[in-house]
């Protein structure tokens, strides 16, 4: 069971980055449906740069590996955000269409180069950046010693904690700083923000690019930690990217909610693996006979239905939020809408 919580946190961290970046983006009023694309870009850039560095020196230094791949992943994803910003903000293109194109493009670029790297790595075609991945997965020395608590909470690579810190910083940024409040004003009502002297274009550009960069770190964490420094063109990142978009809604655009929301999503995603154990435990605890609780006796097919849970939960939140109409839970008022000063 401890493993369930560990994998929930690891899984959750990938989408937490994606969601944090998207929260920042959406707070500026830009609905970037290119999250899977930028996560792809971040993942491949981190992997490719680490690979290039590791084959260029006989003894790669872990700290340098870390720095190079981290910076490259952030920049590549931010570049994806820049394309999106240029098209939607400067060229006034439709946000949904541009975002979806970014997803196609990012996925194409990443899988293309990922495949190429696999071929380049030779033989069976499996790239591996062992040193970098080990650096990402290095955990606190006392993590494994403190029993179950240590194993679940202290035994992760640094990016798990970075994500939490980032979420807390973002909460502070949105609520306590002038820039954060300005950004929210832009997302709620750009015309008013513009009239108040806020540079709408600059805020939207910065929020979207930095947001994309943060989302890209989710891709980096996925390649380096989740699949341990390899590449697989299976489209997993894409599914995770959409889950990150779902998480933004689930967390009602609040970064602190995203922390527990992401772990909950991870928990729900992996739960099916542990359902047989839960069933056995329940039968034992409640003194039922062996054929009881057939509903929890998952076959390979009913497992799939179980994996629906995170999405169903998101739909439920979406509906409840729209029904209750509490003002502080609504999406940014101008989300998805373009702003052109001349068209007021």
């Amino acid at each position, binding site marked *: 069971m401890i493993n369930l919580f560990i994998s929930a946190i690891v899984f959750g961290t990938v989408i937490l980055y994606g969601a944090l970046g998207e929260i920042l983006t959406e707070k500026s009023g830009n609905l970037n449906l290119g999250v899977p694309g930028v996560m792809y870009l971040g993942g491949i850039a981190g992997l490719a740069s680490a690979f290039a560095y590791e084959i260029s020196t006989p003894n790669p230094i872990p700290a340098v590996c870390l720095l190079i791949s981290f910076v490259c992943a952030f920049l590549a994803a931010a570049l994806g955000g820049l394309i999106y910003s240029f098209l939607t903000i400067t*060229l006034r293109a439709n946000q949904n269409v*541009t975002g979806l194109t970014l997803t196609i493009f990012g996925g194409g670029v990443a899988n*293309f180069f990922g495949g190429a790297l696999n071929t380049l790595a030779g033989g069976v075609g499996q790239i591996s950046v062992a040193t970098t991945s080990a650096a990402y997965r290095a955990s606190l020395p006392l993590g494994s010693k403190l029993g179950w608590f240590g194993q679940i909470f202290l035994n992760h690579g640094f990016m798990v904690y970075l994500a939490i810190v980032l979420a807390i910083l973002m909460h502070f940024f949105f609520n306590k700083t002038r820039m954060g409040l300005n950004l929210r004003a832009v997302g709620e009502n750009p015309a008013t923000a513009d009239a108040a002297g806020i540079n709408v274009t600059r805020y939207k550009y910065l929020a979207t690019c930095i947001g994309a960069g943060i989302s890209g770190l989710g891709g980096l964490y996925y390649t380096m930690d989740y699949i341990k420094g390899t590449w697989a063109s299976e489209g997993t990142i894409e599914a995770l990217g959409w889950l990150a978009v*779902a998480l933004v809604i689930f967390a009602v655009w609040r970064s602190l909610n995203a922390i527990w929301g992401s772990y909950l999503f991870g928990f729900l995603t992996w739960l099916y693996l542990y359902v047989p154990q839960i069933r056995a435990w329940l039968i034992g605890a409640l003194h039922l006979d062996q054929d009881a609780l057939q509903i929890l006796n998952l076959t390979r097919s009913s497992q799939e239905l179980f994996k629906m849970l995170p999405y169903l939960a998101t739909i439920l939140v979406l509906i409840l939020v729209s029904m209750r109409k509490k003002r502080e839970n609504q999406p940014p008022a101008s989300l998805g809408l373009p702003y052109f000063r001349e068209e007021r």
Partner: protein
Amino acid sequence: MSSPNVHHEPLIRIAKRDGLAVWKNWLIRLVFVLIALLLSGLFIYAVTKLNPLKVYAAMFEGALGTKRRVWITIRDTMMLLCIGVGLAPAFKMKFWNVGAEGQILVGGVATAGLMIYLGKSAAMSTPVMLLVMALASIVAGAVWGVIPAVFKARWGTNETLFTLMMNYVAIQITSYCVALWENPFGSNTVGQINPQTKAGWFPRVFGLDFGLNVIIVMALTIGMFLYLKYSKHGYEIAVLGESERTARYAGIKPSRVFIRTMAISGAICGLAGFIAVAGASHTISTSTAGGRGFTAIIVAWLAKFNTFVMLLISFLLVFLQKGAIEIASQFKLNDFASNVITGIILFCIIASEFFINYRVIFHKRKEAGSK
């Protein structure tokens, strides 16, 4: 002397253009497609050091090289077009139906299920079976489309996010059914359904392999064009898309139009699932929609909901895809090159819309010089 109150005109000014001649419209688009091809050529050259012209020749070969390939290209164009046609009414009323992927899948699942069970009992002839399957897929797709519409109509629930989530519910339902129907056991794929009897497969029409696909989709294309342009419903959709307030003022009930239009939109996407299963792959998997639900959004949007322009854009995209797959095999690249090229081309077409809708006016130096 410059006073502090001097009005600084920005270097670049953007003004809205109206009523650009149609040929100029298309000229701008053509220029951007050429730019896109140039960029993709650069990409190909940078990666492979191959002569891009040779690569483009190979693409042509891949999409239209043999009679078989021509038909595959036509089949896939029809598929993409069908989804685009389904999305057009929803998008025209600014209802962001990002859920085509899911609507296709539920339509496909309904079709595949009936194909398997009716095929086993062999109680119906193929035409009757096709009719039953088509109806089932229409109902399934319509239900999938109507659910978000009801919530949008009643509580204003954000439809972009709702339809997006519905995709994943549909994907899991599909995985469930695939595991349920898998054949052979343990393969986790359904495999071709009824390979011997071909029960429920599209028959050849006029001796053409995918004749029925073309007939159905072209009928939908023409029908949707007329529906949007000349029917009362089409008018209501157009007004609602421009402004919900105007629609209310004109006595149009937005909630009713939302639900009705999404039922139509979902139904056509569901039918696309039927065509994909019964008319093309004869199997079902989570990749039956294969991202086309998303690509079709771009098709519908770029065509400004004109279904005939959609035909053109669908063909262009499928052509590129087939071409890129051919390059991949000829020059030992991987298939994903096609997504990169598709991405570049779409970015360029999206950018071209700006130059069609707006004029860029450069600030004249002369005025700035007169102090």
